[in-house]
């Protein structure tokens, strides 16, 4: 009952957030759990940064109450072109709550949870967070595992358990729902028949849920799937903001800002993935400048806050300030101050070469690092080849086939609007390999427990969404265009 109450609270809170920012009842339903959980992470992070007690019940109550408080303060009334009836909204919400209840019941009775040694380190941090003893979290756990997942798990202390059993499966359903939402909204005005859109949407979902690692990640107590959700939502909301779709921009900016705290506080590479996810949007003159400035400042503020917190934790422990805290702190400051410049119309004109330059820069840095320390690079390359191509990482041949489709799409689909979806995927590859040079363990390892092997899920849903949206585009070049002229 306790778990059902906590999940229901987050669900209703996230749904209200969607409604408040202008979504329809069905649209809000698709984001409900992810948005609700992200509100809880944001509240937890705020308490942490302000040095206030981190009591899970307070975090949960604040996360649940926040959208309602905003609703009351702003005297919110249903808006939009076609206001929905209260009955319809409540029916949609009731349907969502029944689904959530089924997942909670199932996960408390079906024993298919997945774990790794990291799971218990997250659990340790979660219990310390719940007790308000975050000063005892080790610097290693702080720097590598951060707070998103510990805060999520800590909510289980409200009902005296160690973790929320339905947390990850519900998140997984949320990833599927949001993928579907974004695909449908992004392709709304494309010159494609409705039947074809349905076929692609079904195939997109099938491609995700038939993937062995996606299913595994749907039960695996770790933060990877949440990071994947954040990356996809930030990038796809940015892509939608550039196109004039039926989805209100107020929602798109709000959801981008809401997903930044769990992303930056989710993993050590979270701020880098966040940077890659927001950059194409920030440079795009097609989106309102005010929105782009807001998202860039949000990213900068989050990166600055977290890494300043990390730097302070090192100082408190009488340790030297690591570059992994100082570098991102500087990046956060730079992002805030450069926001007016980076969003300037002049710079937006050079969006394509700038993105190309950023990506080429990452590959160049990787090449230099590989020359400097070839053992790490070759070791990582060999391990990744064995994990992804030979099958040691339990991906089967799925990533090889998906990479083939992505390369095909990159080669022939020249739709520039897709850059916002494509860039975080393709730029993440050199970034992942670069991380091997800065992490403690050196090169990546062979096996399904390897960090990179598990990190690959973080860009998987977005890459599938990119391919699915590209399929509906009309801007394809050779060989298609040449043939059409015959």
């Amino acid at each position, binding site marked *: 009952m306790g778990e059902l109450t906590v999940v229901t609270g987050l669900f209703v809170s996230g749904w209200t957030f969607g409604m408040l920012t202008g979504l329809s009842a069905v649209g809000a339903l698709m984001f409900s759990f992810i948005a609700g959980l992200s509100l809880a992470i944001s509240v937890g992070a705020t308490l942490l940064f302000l040095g206030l007690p981190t009591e899970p019940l307070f975090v949960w109550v604040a996360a649940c109450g926040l959208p309602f408080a905003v609703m009351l303060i702003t005297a919110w009334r249903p808006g939009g072109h076609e206001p929905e009836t209260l009955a319809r909204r409540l029916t949609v919400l009731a349907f969502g709550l029944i689904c959530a209840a089924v997942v909670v019941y199932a996960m408390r009775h079906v024993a298919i949870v997945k774990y790794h040694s990291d799971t*218990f380190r997250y659990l340790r941090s979660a219990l310390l967070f719940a007790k308000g003893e975050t000063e005892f979290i080790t610097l290693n756990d702080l720097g590598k595992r951060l707070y998103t997942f510990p805060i999520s798990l800590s909510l289980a202390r409200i009902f005296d358990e160690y973790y929320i059993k339905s947390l990850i499966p519900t998140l997984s359903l949320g990833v599927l729902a949001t993928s579907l939402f974004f695909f449908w909204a992004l392709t709304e005005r494309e010159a494609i028949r409705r039947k074809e859109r349905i076929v692609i949407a079904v195939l997109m979902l099938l491609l995700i849920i038939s993937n062995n690692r996606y299913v595994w990640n749907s039960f695996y107590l770790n933060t990877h799937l949440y990071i994947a959700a954040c990356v996809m939502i930030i990038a796809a909301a940015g892509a939608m903001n550039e196109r004039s779709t039926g989805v209100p921009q107020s929602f798109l900016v709000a959801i981008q800002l809401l997903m930044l705290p769990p992303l930056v506080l989710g993993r050590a590479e979270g701020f880098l993935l966040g940077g890659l996810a927001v950059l194409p949007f920030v440079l795009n003159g097609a989106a309102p400048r005010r929105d782009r400035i807001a998202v860039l400042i949000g990213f900068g503020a989050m990166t600055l806050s977290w890494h300043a917190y990390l730097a302070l934790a090192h100082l408190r422990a009488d340790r030297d300030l690591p570059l992994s805290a100082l570098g991102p702190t500087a990046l956060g400051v730079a992002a805030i101050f450069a926001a007016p410049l980076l969003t300037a119309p002049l710079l937006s004109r050079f969006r394509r070469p700038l993105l190309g330059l950023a990506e080429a820069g990452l590959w160049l840095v990787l090449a230099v690092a590989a020359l400097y320390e070839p053992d790490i690079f070759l070791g990582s390359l060999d391990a990744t080849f064995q994990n992804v191509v030979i099958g040691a990482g339990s991906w089967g041949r799925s990533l090889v086939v998906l990479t083939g489709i992505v390369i095909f799409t990159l080669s022939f689909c020249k739709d520039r609007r897709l850059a916002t979806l494509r860039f975080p995927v393709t730029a993440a590859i050199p970034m992942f390999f670069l991380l091997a040079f800065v992490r403690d363990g050196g090169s990546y390892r062979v096996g399904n427990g390897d960090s990179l092997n598990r990190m690959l899920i973080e860009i998987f849903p977005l890459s599938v969404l990119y391919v699915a949206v590209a399929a509906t585009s009309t801007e394809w070049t050779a060989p298609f265009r040449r043939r059409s002229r015959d």
Partner: protein
Amino acid sequence: MVKRSIDEARLGTDRVARRSSVGRPQDDTVFAALPRTKVRLLPSIEFSDSIGSIMKVSDTLKSALRTWLKRPFNFVLVFITFAVIVNIVEFPFIDKTTRHNYKAIYAYDSVDVVQVSIDRDNSSRETVAPYYYFGVLFPDSVVIMPTRERIADAIAIRSLGLASEIQYRDYEADRLFASIDLSTNLWDLAALAEDRGSTLAVIERTFGIATSHQPSGIFVILHDPYGKFYYVDTSLLGEAARKELGLG
């Protein structure tokens, strides 16, 4: 000769086509089973021995394929379908060759991940079980630990062990352990963990819990010479030991 037969065949095809459109209903079972666009090809199928009809079919197919190839949508459709098929075919094989905690679908005996990991993994039996079971049995306890020795993990006692407070005292945990007999006060750990081969052996080698009939809620960490540590209820300690720990 060949040309004549081709012409004848074409003529025959046309006749049949005309006949089919006039004499036979269009929803004939053969026609009904196929998509509308291909219906026109069918009469020639009846004359598959004729080269002309084959050429006609081939031309039509080529033209259809050309039209189909013009649409990148179709390519991506085929690719994604192929990717889904690859995933589905490989799924059971991946799970077959993977360790239980990396299998996508694998049912355990318990829904609790901590219990599952203790049942299955030695590392959890050594690093999770000693603290988790203490937390389950005696939440919110006060734990006294030696200042200098680190056999028990203080952070794990705080977190998984749910200790409300940890106090550090300057005492020799092994000497204090040698001075008391805990044999009649030890908890039977078999009641906590299901024995799957070596589960109990590893747990019992790692830690122990000793309490009186009415536990005080204050435990002191002691350990034997082999590195096994014990949560010892302070009410079991003698006067001298209590004094040494500053318990009055």
